[in-house]
């Protein structure tokens, strides 16, 4: 069996999220170094505050300022911080019940080591130097042995409240294509197109995915297909894709390679875009250093009869 192929895959996007009135007041407050909670129908103060009572689902809007000092209710020592976490030196994760609140807020606690942390210890907010209206405006908590800070009674009305956050997310993967696609990609590097035949319905799939989607059984018998094929259907692309150095308009087509029972897709070149037609016979054009054909061009053969490819549309 050939070696398993793998490649890095990064999934990364910024999520833009709008805020409800309670979330907006809380995050704007952090920007202004004010911590707000919300009062529930039964008089409890939730920090961080939410829009709806987690027990009764009642809409709650009554904002109450609490102190930036509080007590650790549970903690965990993180000796190896990971990407994106609040501190890049060892720290404790902590749930902190701020003075005046009835529930606890999750954040990092900067402490010299696990022996310096215990449940019940007193801490205070360390504010970030640059604050934008996000939970990271709290840089972390730090040990504190003074009296509870006295909140000023802020009502939650601010100039220029934040109405949304942008939360970037990035996840890193090692992509491996699986057994069938690995075999297909290995063959491509020898400029061969290899499909796989279903043992039950005898259809040949290219590129193969390892299973016949009709029969639900594994495919394994390799079959050389192409290199020539027939355009079964196509579209004319008029919008230039970013990072793609191809002049528009161009034709993108479904191509049934000879011997295959499923069409793959590719770009058609070597012919004006408005002369491409169903039934056009084409062959791959390879370029140095690329694993996949660059495009397909006409072979000059007569067009294929519709009857020969109508099942492959």
């Amino acid at each position, binding site marked *: 069996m050939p070696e398993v192929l793998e490649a890095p895959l990064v999934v990364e996007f910024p999520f833009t999220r709008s805020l409800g009135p309670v979330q907006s007041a809380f995050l704007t407050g952090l920007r202004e170094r004010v911590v707000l909670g919300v009062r529930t129908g039964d008089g409890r103060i939730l920090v961080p505050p939410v829009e709806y009572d987690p027990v009764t689902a009642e809409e709650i809007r009554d904002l109450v300022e609490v102190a930036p000092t509080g007590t650790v209710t549970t903690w965990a020592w993180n*000796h190896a911080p990971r990407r994106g976490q609040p501190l890049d030196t060892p720290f404790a*994760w902590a749930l902190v019940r701020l003075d005046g609140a009835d*529930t606890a807020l999750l954040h990092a606690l900067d402490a010299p080591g696990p022996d310096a942390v215990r449940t019940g210890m007193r801490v205070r907010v360390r504010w970030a130097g640059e604050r934008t209206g996000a*939970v990271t405006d709290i840089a972390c908590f730090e040990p504190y042995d003074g009296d509870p800070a006295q909140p000023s009674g802020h009502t939650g009305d601010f100039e220029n409240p934040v109405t949304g956050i942008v939360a970037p997310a990035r996840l890193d*993967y*090692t992509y*491996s294509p699986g057994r069938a696609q690995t075999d297909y990609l290995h063959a491509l590097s020898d400029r061969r197109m290899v499909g796989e035949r279903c043992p039950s319905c005898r259809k040949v799939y290219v590129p193969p995915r390892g299973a016949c989607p009709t029969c639900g059984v594994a495919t394994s018998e390799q079959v050389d297909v192409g290199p020539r094929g027939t355009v079964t259907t196509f579209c004319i692309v008029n919008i230039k894709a970013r990072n793609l150095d191809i002049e528009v308009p161009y034709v993108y087509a479904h191509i049934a390679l000879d011997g295959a029972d499923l069409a793959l897709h590719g770009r058609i070149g070597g012919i004006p875009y408005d002369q491409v037609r169903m039934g056009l016979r084409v062959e791959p054009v390879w370029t140095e250093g690329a694993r996949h054909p660059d495009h397909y061009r006409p072979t000059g053969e007569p067009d294929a009869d519709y009857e020969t490819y109508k099942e492959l549309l």
Partner: protein
Amino acid sequence: MTREIAVVAFARTDHRRGADELSEVEMLMPVLHEVLDRTGLKTADIGFTCSGSCDYLAGRAFSFTLALDGVGAWPPISESHVEMDGAWALYEAWTKLLAGDADTALVYSYGKSTPGSVRDVLTRQLDPYYVAPLWPDSVALAALQAQALIDAGDTDEPALAAVAARSRGSRADAAPQGDYVVRPLRTGDCPPVVDGAAAVVLAAGDRARELCERPAWIRGIDHRIEAHALGVRDLTDSPSTRLAAERAGAFRRPVDTAELHAPFSSQEVVLRKALRLDDGVRVNPSGGALAANPVMAAGLVRIGEAAAGIHRGRSDRALAHATSGPCLQQNLVAVLEGDPR
């Protein structure tokens, strides 16, 4: 309840093996074939198909549609998917059978956790405003829960090590617990990262009796969720598990076996308490999620293992539990019984 519904077959991958060389469908397909073979059914005989998986695990968009290749979905089948553990796919299939819309159902789930960093991937399910921007990984959150249990006097590190050792089939004094991952949790307290898949077949009434010598009848099944804010919850308890168990009828009579989906040793402590399991109950004879935790399949595996014990005559009344979310946020409980012998 108007219709009796049973688990009639179960299959799972050998989760201890890596599946680097296989795509998701290549990993899943043998499990689907095995579960169908046990009943003699073909895809075309199945009334409803439901799957559970999560695209974020392997970073492949719409991976569940590719996984359908392994089912053989032509001519078109009646099919659904949940972006959750397969235990919740089973719940959906159960309601479908209960409503009389089908007599048989194929339920499967799979997860490839090894292509990504599952500790980080799972941060994306958290509150996106207040929690996810801090990237607290799944071990960190479980460690906060474990410390709360230690503070409450519900457990200590040696007791957690004993849970881990029992799950992995080794003696407590011989099994190295390893170093802290996030203190107080050590390597041995955390689930191994594996790839895997599982599948069950459900059938109603007489159809179940035709397909299986001793069907595992679902006497009750229910799932409940708690607040998403960790600081609102009592992390040493699981009221959602207890409520789901009540609604599933778990407390009406004792069970002989319990398959608990506790990815962390400390979570077994919470679940035993919430479910009032005493020492007479066999807990996780399969090894549980500490032996193998194929994310998105580990909950369905619990139901399948509980059912398989009944099929083989090793159990008469079993409880199966599945969880989802941080620190046991959402919980499903099913009660399974075999016919009297």
